[in-house]
């Protein structure tokens, strides 16, 4: 597909990185800053065009007349919308995606989307807040991705020292715990594995399991992790994300306390989130945190604008509370270091935003030629979980799994047949009409037949 990315900020660059890794995309990037453009062109296989995305000449040079998707992710909402508007005027077949982050537009967002013919509007703060809220409702997992219209989940959690799963081989887990789940991926340090039966789990591994929702809950309970959603939440930093998050949490009955340093901002928050407790004070002040009850808080979210401060806050919170701790990281890129700090959930708004857009691009790509229903990056982006629909005459249909020879590093994680979820064993078959979830560290699968050797 021909894709134009306008704006090489954090999200733009992430998108370019991810998209250029996938096959079959011709990517053109547009930015006014020559030096940044040069860097990107040197690192990824893309073409660069200097200029403003809202300029007709620039868009023409970037090949708008043959573009399938235009993604406008500059720092300015207005510029993004204008770019999309002009792009649609030149090429009516181009799908446009705009990043719009100003909360003032959020109420009219549907109107804007409709009127400008946008395919998608993405708001990074809101998206990040949604992600955080989801984690808080299911605090034991680190990441949750849903498949099969929400019936199947892939959960990721970290093995604690006292977990019964430690030092257990995968083949023994079913027998020991009698659960209907499948371990589809393990991350250890920087490596990601799709484990086979004799794989031994160790303390500190990040384990991803695929299961039906109710099975997942009971499994989690069996291995001794609390499943209850949190009752209250302390948020440090009252930015836009905090507003979205607070609204979201309050709606699901979670008490929210926001600590905001700036007096004016605190008063403003007070006005727009009446149900939350707004504390005007320095969130990095330990005494204040203790005074506000961090020791008994069931969850803690650090949302200040400084990444380093968020990391420190969360590390501190980890020592004080048993609750869930979420850290927002906007900018810094030392993933490996941060992961080893033992912070349980880290939210990278740029990654999430990029992920959402990628999902859309994938879905578009599917409509021309492939048949992926949904797809998620799992295991820290090192693997993909793909949902395929099996059609009549597919080369994998009507065969028992034992007899199908797969490429390496592929796991058929789940079969969904008429709403029933089957954790596949060797004797199971894929039938026409089923959807199946495939987990793989290979990239660029477009069809279920790609899994065959």
């Amino acid at each position, binding site marked *: 597909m*021909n894709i134009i990315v306008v704006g090489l900020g954090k999200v733009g660059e992430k998108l370019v990185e991810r998209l*250029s890794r996938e096959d079959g995309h*011709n*990517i*053109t990037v547009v930015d006014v800053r*020559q030096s940044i453009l040069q860097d990107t*062109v*040197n*690192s*990824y*296989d*893309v*073409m660069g065009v200097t200029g403003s995305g809202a300029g007709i000449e620039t868009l023409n040079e970037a090949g708008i007349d043959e573009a399938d998707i235009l993604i406008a992710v500059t720092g300015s909402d207005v510029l993004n919308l204008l770019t999309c508007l002009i792009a649609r005027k030149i090429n009516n077949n181009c799908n446009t995606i705009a990043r719009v982050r100003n909360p003032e537009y959020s109420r009219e967002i549907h109107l804007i989307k409709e009127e400008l013919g946008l395919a998608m509007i993405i708001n990074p703060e809101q998206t990040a807040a949604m992600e955080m809220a989801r984690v808080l409702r299911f605090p034991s997992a680190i990441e949750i991705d849903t498949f099969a219209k929400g019936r199947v989940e892939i959960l990721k959690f970290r093995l604690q020292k006292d977990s019964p799963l430690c030092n257990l081989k995968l083949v023994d887990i079913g027998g020991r715990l009698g659960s209907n789940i499948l371990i589809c991926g393990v991350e250890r340090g920087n490596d990601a594995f799709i484990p086979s039966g004799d794989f031994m789990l160790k303390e500190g591994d990040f384990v991803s399991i695929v299961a039906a929702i109710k099975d997942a809950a009971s499994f989690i309970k069996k291995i001794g992790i609390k499943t209850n959603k949190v009752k209250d939440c302390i948020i440090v930093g009252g930015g836009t994300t905090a507003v979205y998050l607070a609204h979201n949490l309050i709606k699901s009955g979670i008490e929210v306390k926001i600590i905001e340093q700036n007096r004016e901002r605190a008063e403003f928050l007070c006005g727009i989130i009446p149900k939350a407790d707004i504390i005007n004070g320095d969130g990095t002040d330990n005494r204040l945190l203790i005074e506000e009850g961090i020791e008994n808080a069931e969850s803690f979210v650090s949302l200040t604008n400084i990444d380093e401060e968020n990391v420190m806050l969360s590390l501190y919170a980890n020592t004080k509370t048993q609750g869930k701790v979420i850290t927002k990281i906007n900018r810094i890129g030392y993933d490996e270091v941060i992961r080893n700090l033992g912070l349980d959930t880290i939210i990278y708004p740029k990654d999430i935003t990029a992920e959402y857009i990628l999902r859309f691009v994938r879905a578009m790509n599917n409509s021309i030629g492939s048949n992926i229903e949904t797809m998620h990056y799992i295991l820290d982006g090192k693997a993909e979980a793909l949902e395929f629909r099996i059609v009549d005459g597919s080369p994998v249909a009507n065969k028992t799994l034992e007899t199908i020879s797969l490429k390496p590093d592929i796991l058929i994680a789940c079969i969904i047949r008429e709403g029933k979820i089957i954790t596949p064993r060797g004797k199971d078959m894929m039938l026409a009409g089923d959807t199946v979830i495939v987990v793989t560290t290979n990239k660029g699968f477009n069809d279920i037949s790609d899994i065959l050797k």
Partner: protein
Amino acid sequence: MKYRIVSYVLGCVLGIEAAAMLLPFGCAVVFDEPCKWTFLLCSLICLGVSVPLILTRPKDKTMFAKEGFAAVALSWIFMSVFGALPFVFSGSIPNFIDAFFETASGFTTTGASILSDVEALPKSMLFWRSFTHWIGGMGVLVFLVAILPVSGGGNLHLIRAESPGHSVGKLVPRVKSTAKILYGIYILMTILEILLLMVGGFDWFEASTLTFGTAGTGGFGILNSSVGEYSSYIQVIITVFMVMFGVDFSFYYLLIMRKVRSAFKMEEVWIYLGIIAASIAVIFFNIRDAFGTSEEALRHSAFQVSSIITTTGFSTVDFDLWPQLSKTILVLLMFCGACAGSTGGGLKVSRILILFKSIIKEIKVLVHPKSTVKVKLNGKPLEHEVLRGVNVFFVAYMFIFAVAMLIISCDNMDFTTNFTAVVATLSNIGPGLGAVGPTCNFSGYSTVSTLVLSLVMIIGRLEIFPVLVLLSRKTWKK
């Protein structure tokens, strides 16, 4: 530097060279010449060196600028070394340094020769000599990128280090597709010329060798008189194609994509054609009296101008006998060279244009000290980095020129010979004036000078910096 990625690229390049040597082998089989086994042997030697190098293929194929530069520069040196083997083994050019000069001259599309009697060589040897022009014209790394299964941002460094021009961009978002398009246009134009030459009465051997010489803007002929003995039809066809291969290939791409308007907006192409037209006109009036008819004078002036500005180096007459004005114009054209993004060498018209505009800008700034003026090309303001690059390139070009001339002056040839020998090799033209004129050759130079001139050709073809990067100690640090 990551040695493994560099050696991997080197291995691939030698693999391509091994495959390329099978063509002259085929040619030798057709003509049943005894040197056929030489080609097969050399091909196997290339393959033998290439395979272990390819096996060093690293897992992480990311390439940074320095690896790109080093890989390209080393590839060209190695290619010339291995390409010289057939000449040495078959005894056509027994001295290895001479053979290296001849091959470097072939790959860099210079066309300078140390052979005094070209016609004495077996046909397959001549074919190989001309074929090196064709490989070197568009560049072997561009070919490699077009066929290599991996793609990544790093590959752009390879193309950038190999392709001529002040700023090498892409035609389409993917490096690989860009490389394929370039080679597609190149192959198409090559086939067209071969066919047109065959219409003029050439057999396939003459048509293809001469076309390789034109397409790469090389200049190796198969007769001692270069192109002088052929019919005027052939000479006209070659003139037209020389000019065409000197045009920026993105011009053709834009034409193919029916973006005629943006194609015709390319300033460089117009200036290039303008310089050619003006030079032809002046030389025509300058030499008209020496020829019987005006047609003949026009044909020869057009042929020589096109041959020199595109840095091909074919000749129809001995222009060393022409009046001073004509000779001087030709020498100046040697510096100028063809368009960026073509197969030609030299400073490139775009750089001359930018330098010229910089002078105008400087004058404006001197007159109005506070005025803000930007140098523009194709209607777009140029970044400071680009201007700096062009300026430094020009200075480096002149330095290399001076140093090379100093070294070869030890051989005690006359000034005209030395001066034109260096410019003819640095700009990848071929013949110069005096003792290296169109009817003479470079065999008069000593071994040291031959080696220096060989390196000058490679430096000129890769536009200086990739080779200079090799000399920095920091490049080699792990």
